[in-house]
């Protein structure tokens, strides 16, 4: 958590689309089906800030994370990193950029090669980019292990000798190896016990302060996302429904889906009525998230929305600004909020006014 500066965006994505073809058998006829994993997402992340991306299954947040670091190739749209358009760069051209953007994955048991020792796992980035002799790499790996709170003596151990939380720390150390500017963390704490989650979250926080990192933090746990993020983006079925600063999103959601999502969180009543306590009434959504192969027409949320009207099924709402960096895509914004008239139709990347 740190103040988002007013400098130009470190990472900017415009109208990102990723469709995965659904493979049918050789003898099937008919139109090809696609999974609309990400369907027109635009975002901008400033240096030093943490953008949280939150949503449920099928919303496309994981795919988005991989698109941002070009682990997937976008079907259309553009990605600009630190001023350079990296959307269509070849793998060789992409290499120097890969040093600057790294990813942390969800499953600490699957994302580390069980046959490699820690020194190789964390040291590989150096080797791949041709940096440093073996002895130097070793030294740097030891340094990184210390930074993430692990003992440098464990440099020759295998992943299975560590606990889940420690493995996740190894993943973080690996991501930090080449001093990246941006880290995309895809559900980095979901597979961990609650008390270990807190440790890793604190670690990520400290590292951000120490190294000036920028994070895109993808998660489904609203509490964790709110804690770590400066700004939060809510996704539903491949589209962005709302973007706002963390506090504003939780205090004054505009989109009905955000509202339902927030209200679905169980409340732990510890009895203290501290300042800023918000009590919500529970909105239980009907039905389930539809398949991303056949998303609903118009606003994707309309079949489950209690405020839906004709226009919601006919026309897909645009993401419009509501002031103070708060954007939402809805025909019937909550609380009677009204978009800033003059700037209607602008995209999210023009925020900062």
């Amino acid at each position, binding site marked *: *958590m740190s103040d988002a500066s007013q400098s130009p965006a470190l990472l900017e994505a415009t109208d990102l689309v990723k469709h995965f073809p659904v493979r049918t058998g050789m003898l099937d006829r008919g139109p090809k089906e696609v999974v609309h994993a990400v369907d027109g997402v635009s975002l901008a992340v400033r240096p030093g800030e943490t953008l949280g991306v939150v949503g*449920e*299954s099928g919303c496309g947040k994981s795919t988005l994370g991989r698109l941002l670091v070009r682990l997937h190739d976008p079907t259309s749209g553009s990605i600009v990193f630190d001023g350079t358009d990296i959307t269509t760069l070849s793998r060789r051209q992409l290499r120097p950029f890969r040093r600057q953007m790294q990813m942390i994955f969800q499953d600490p048991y699957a994302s580390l090669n069980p046959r490699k020792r820690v020194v190789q796992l964390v040291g590989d980035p150096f080797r791949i980019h041709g940096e440093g002799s073996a002895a130097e790499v070793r030294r740097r790996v030891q340094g990184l292990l210390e930074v993430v709170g692990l003992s440098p003596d464990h440099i020759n151990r295998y992943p299975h000798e560590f*606990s*889940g*939380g*420690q493995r996740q720390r190894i993943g973080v150390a690996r991501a930090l190896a080449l001093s990246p500017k941006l880290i995309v963390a895809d559900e980095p704490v979901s597979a961990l*016990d*609650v*008390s*270990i*989650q*807190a*440790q890793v*979250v*604190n670690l990520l*926080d400290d590292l951000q302060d120490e190294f000036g990192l920028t994070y895109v933090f993808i998660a*489904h*746990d*609203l*509490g*964790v996302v*709110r*804690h770590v993020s400066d700004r939060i983006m809510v996704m539903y079925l491949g589209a962005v429904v709302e973007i706002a600063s*963390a*506090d504003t999103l*939780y205090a004054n959601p505009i989109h009905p889906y955000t509202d*339902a*999502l*927030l*209200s*679905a*969180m*169980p*409340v*732990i*009543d*510890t*009895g*203290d009525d*501290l*300042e*800023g*306590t*918000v*009590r*919500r009434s*529970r909105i*239980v*959504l009907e039905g*389930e*998230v539809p398949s991303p192969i056949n998303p609903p027409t118009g606003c994707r949320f309309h079949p489950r929305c209690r405020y839906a009207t004709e226009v919601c099924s006919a026309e897909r709402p645009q993401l419009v600004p509501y002031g103070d960096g708060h954007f939402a895509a809805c025909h019937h914004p909550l609380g009677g909020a009204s978009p800033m008239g003059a700037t209607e139709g602008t995209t999210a990347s023009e925020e900062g006014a």
Partner: protein
Amino acid sequence: MRDEIATSPLLEIRDLRISFRTEHGLARAVDGLSLSIEAGEAVGIVGESGSGKTISMLAVMRLIRDPNAVIEGQVLHRGRDLMQLPEREMQAVRGGDIAMIFQDPMTALTPVYTVGWQIAEQLRAHEPLSKRQARVRAVSLLAEVGIPNPERRVDEYPHQFSGGMRQRAMIAMALSCNPSLLIADEPTTALDVTVQAQILELMRRLRRDHGSSVLLITHDMGAVGELAERVVVMYAGRVVEEGPKEAIFRDPQHPYTWGLLGSIPRVDRARVRRLAAIPGSPPSLLDLREGCRFEPRCGYRFERCATRPELLERVAPGRRDACHLDPSVRPALRRAALDGENAQASA
């Protein structure tokens, strides 16, 4: 519910101890769990990995088949000790009077049989029904848990259901024989948050309609808050604290509970600067000390902690905790633990 005079309590676990013989020694998974649950009550057992919460419930159901397991203690239910029952009689209890649902609905149903068939299997194991009668019951059960088009869905396979639907189907199956006790092992953990809310709502409603007791095993304090009346907190195989839910949330007595509550980022109030994380990790089950098992990670340990703290009522009737700290100093320590490090975050 069975038409018998319910003896109170409905289920009483007495000093349950579970260990596993491994090549590295004896792993003590559960060390003296004592717990009772009344008819119609909802109890939440909270703990993290290694707390022993799941394994103790598997032991209650006699579902542990590991030949290296050593299980001691008593589980009293309707005047009988379930640990001593012959397997045949235990089969009548399982699924009949005490039912259990599991965590991952994706893998918890057999992929090669239809959902209706699997529900019917449970029904016919406990009641003399024909296939057709069982199918009719299965359809109405699916309808009761809110699955649309139950007549069609009953002939579909588990992989054709979504996660939330599968969990509902599992709940339907578990409740099919009207058990007096439902044990739910992390029923909502693998589900999306909006689906979680639906399932918890469903479980609340079914509890009301069927009057069954619920033992909810979870690491999610939030789920506990939604469903349970009484909470039991476990750590490394032992109960560290138990009591009514509001009391545990508002006035927790054990440093582990403080740590647990402090680790959870809260949505309903202003953000904190830093999560009050518990340092270190849970102990290996092979290497357990006799004294307080939380001691290595506890910021308030002192010499007495080398001896095992008894689970006793120290602050109020109905509330037990296993901590040597003097009850009078606890509130201040708790406040410091939960709020001290956290100045309100600047917006």
